[in-house]
């Protein structure tokens, strides 16, 4: 595990690029590497096919060319969408959603710090009133980030009402950006997904929602697509956050998610430290992924 370069395909591709020419084994290795990186059978097939065409078109036999083409293909596919966050409204309300354990609360902590670091005043709303100690966890993060927090008035309070109160407070205090944490929910739980729609509806009575960020765990496999589709339907997701990219998972499924849903990746999380959150740059991502 130690010798692995985190979230890079370079290890898996080493054998392939060490060879002198592109042959059948090269293609097989490439396919294996992509599937191993969670690209999924469909995307893998599409990429390999595209690269085969490219290789035939330019009549190259040099694996180095193939590597470059792979990088470009991945980058091209990732760059199809606009990755900028729209936070121009005041207050700009950001709703953070996702399944259980993907790192929503941690992401909010890091995002708050990032924004505070840029001189914005941030208010976080603890609308995860379900999970034990979620409010406390968020409180700790917001304290570290230097953001204000709105807590539920009592245990098990309706998350929509906490969200409403948070936005209300932001208007009163003039906070520029509002980050609302929601409870993790599996996309198959219809009741909980409806709850999310309600949070959205209620908040929109006060302010338009600037961004709905869906947090996806990089270790997730092909289920990521199903998650994204459900959350888009119920919460109107506008951007993706990929977390836990500091592990050994490569998160190849995000490509499929982006392409199937048209929702861009906007942030990536790479650690438990408060500064481990960055914006998403297709070029850098592709570079890191392919090596």
């Amino acid at each position, binding site marked *: *595990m130690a010798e692995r370069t985190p979230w890079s395909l370079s290890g898996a591709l080493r054998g392939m690029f060490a060879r002198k020419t592109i042959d059948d084994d090269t293609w097989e290795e490439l396919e294996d590497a992509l599937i*191993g990186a969670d690209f999924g*059978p469909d995307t893998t097939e599409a990429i390999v096919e595209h690269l085969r065409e490219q290789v035939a078109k330019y009549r190259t036999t040099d694996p180095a060319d193939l590597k470059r083409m792979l990088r470009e293909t991945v980058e091209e596919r990732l760059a199809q969408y606009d990755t900028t966050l729209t936070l121009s409204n005041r207050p700009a309300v950001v709703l953070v959603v996702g*399944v259980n354990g993907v*790192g929503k609360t941690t992401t909010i902590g890091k995002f708050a710090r990032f924004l505070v670091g840029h001189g914005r005043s941030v208010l976080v709303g603890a609308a995860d009133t379900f999970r034990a100690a979620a409010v406390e966890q968020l409180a*700790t993060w917001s304290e570290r980030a230097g953001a204000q927090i709105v807590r539920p008035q009592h245990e098990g309070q309706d998350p929509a009402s906490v969200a409403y109160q948070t936005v209300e407070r932001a208007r009163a205090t003039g906070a520029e950006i509002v980050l609302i944490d929601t409870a993790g929910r599996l*996309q198959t739980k219809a009741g909980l997904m409806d709850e999310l729609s309600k949070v959205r509806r209620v908040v929109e009575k006060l302010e338009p929602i600037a961004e709905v960020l869906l947090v996806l765990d990089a270790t997730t496999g092909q289920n990521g*697509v199903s998650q994204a589709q459900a959350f888009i339907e119920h919460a109107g997701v506008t951007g993706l956050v990929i977390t*836990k990219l500091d592990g050994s998972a490569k998160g190849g499924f995000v490509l499929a998610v982006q392409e199937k849903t048209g929702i861009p990746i906007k942030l990536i999380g790479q650690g438990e430290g408060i500064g481990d959150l960055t914006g998403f740059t297709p070029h850098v991502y592709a570079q890191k992924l392919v090596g």
Partner: protein
Amino acid sequence: MAVFGTLSDRLADTFKNLRSKGKLSAADVDGTVREIRRALLDADVALDVVKAFTTRVRERALGDEVNRALNPAQQVVQIVNDELIQILGGQQRRLEFAKNPPTVIMLAGLQGAGKTTLAGKLAKWLAEQQHTPMLVAADLQRPNAVTQLQIVGEQAGVPVFAPEPGNGVGDPVKVAKNAIKHAIDKQHDVVIVDTAGRLGVDAEMMKQARDIRKAIDPDEVLFVIDAMIGQDAVATAKAFQEGVDFTGVVLSKLDGDARGGAALSVASVTGRPIIFASTGEGLSDFEPFHPDRMASRILDLGDILTLIEQAQKQFDEEEARKVAEKLASDTFTLEDFLAQMQQVKKMGSLKGMLSMLPGAKGMREQLENFDEREITRTEAIIQSMTIAERRNPKLLNGSRRLRIAKGSGMTVTDVNQLVARFEQAAKMMKTVARGGVPQVPGMGPIPGGFGGGRGKAAKAKGKKKGGSRSGNPAKRAAEEAARATGVTPGAGGGSGFGLGGAAGAGGPSAEELESLQKLLGR
């Protein structure tokens, strides 16, 4: 996933072109294996595991282990399922308790896998079984993990040992060590140690986990893994196996719609059994792991498997062979006919069976027209006969027929019809069994069929269109038979009742036997 439908659907497509052969050809197997490979990858089974798995399936499918109760499609599916269950549940086991309490259970896993929630569930489950568990808050990393465990413990009604506030303060190794002493003092018989989530690549954190393990010498180390995890499951599982050497696996978040291929990857790469499944956010959403359910979840093959199971359970291969031999040697009697019919009945509702076949949706109408009670009535008539009469229908004179009619609550006409149909069919089947073309003017190859009788079979046959006819007479008879029962030959219908595909080593061939089954089943 949704785009391609379930594996069941895709396999049905692959099998559409397959004729019901007794044995699979290499090309058939390859096509099927390709679909399975794709389905496994879609279910997030690790690539290496998929490769090893499909190779084994291929070998077995091409080998001699051919189950005669199933058609080729079903054979492959069955092999796949067997292999899946073997990997998933080959060594399924229960939680092991220490001889001298306390039993120490340590939880480990990635961030967000669901360790803390699981700790609460496990504690509650153990408490319900008259144990006196204690929870230990050794996750001092994540903000307020300690508080979360305290709340969870309170909900479960289990005490929590939490000497340190957490949030980066305190030494988890020391906490774990002290916890054991505390548990002995307070006479808790199970200690559940919740640890911080850590990445497999984080050498420092893995060392910490190893230190905790060393300090408390747990009886069980449970590796908690998210059912949604992708290809990384293997790397992570290996890292944790090397790092803390877990003794069992818990699959969490199984209430989602992930297929959970990770279960297969982890089980086959580490050889460690999956002990529990976590299926929701409530503290009681927790159960021992069921390998068979997981197997069908990964491949999404529920319906086909149920069918295979039923066919296998009920189909008596020996019986079928005996009948075939009897037919060939001209000694088929009403007694044998009764036995056959009862065998078919054992399989449960024919309508149910037929509708479970892939591609059976199009034949609902025909199914509706099929009266299952017909079999029962025929059965009653035969059962009202003496043994001698069953063996030699020629004995049946007018008074015997009247007695039989009274005994079975039918009319003499019904008895007459049955006997006539039996003779006709026996004659025809004999021809089929010998490889000839049945000659029954005006009735088509199947003279009304048994049991089904009263022109229903003919009606059903009339509705069925399309499908090329085989040049091979025996095969054509089989196809006709399939059509008459309302099964399309293409859709694996050759063994509509799960009876077909019986290959004959010497004696009657597979197809012949199959067509017999068909007639008898009718």
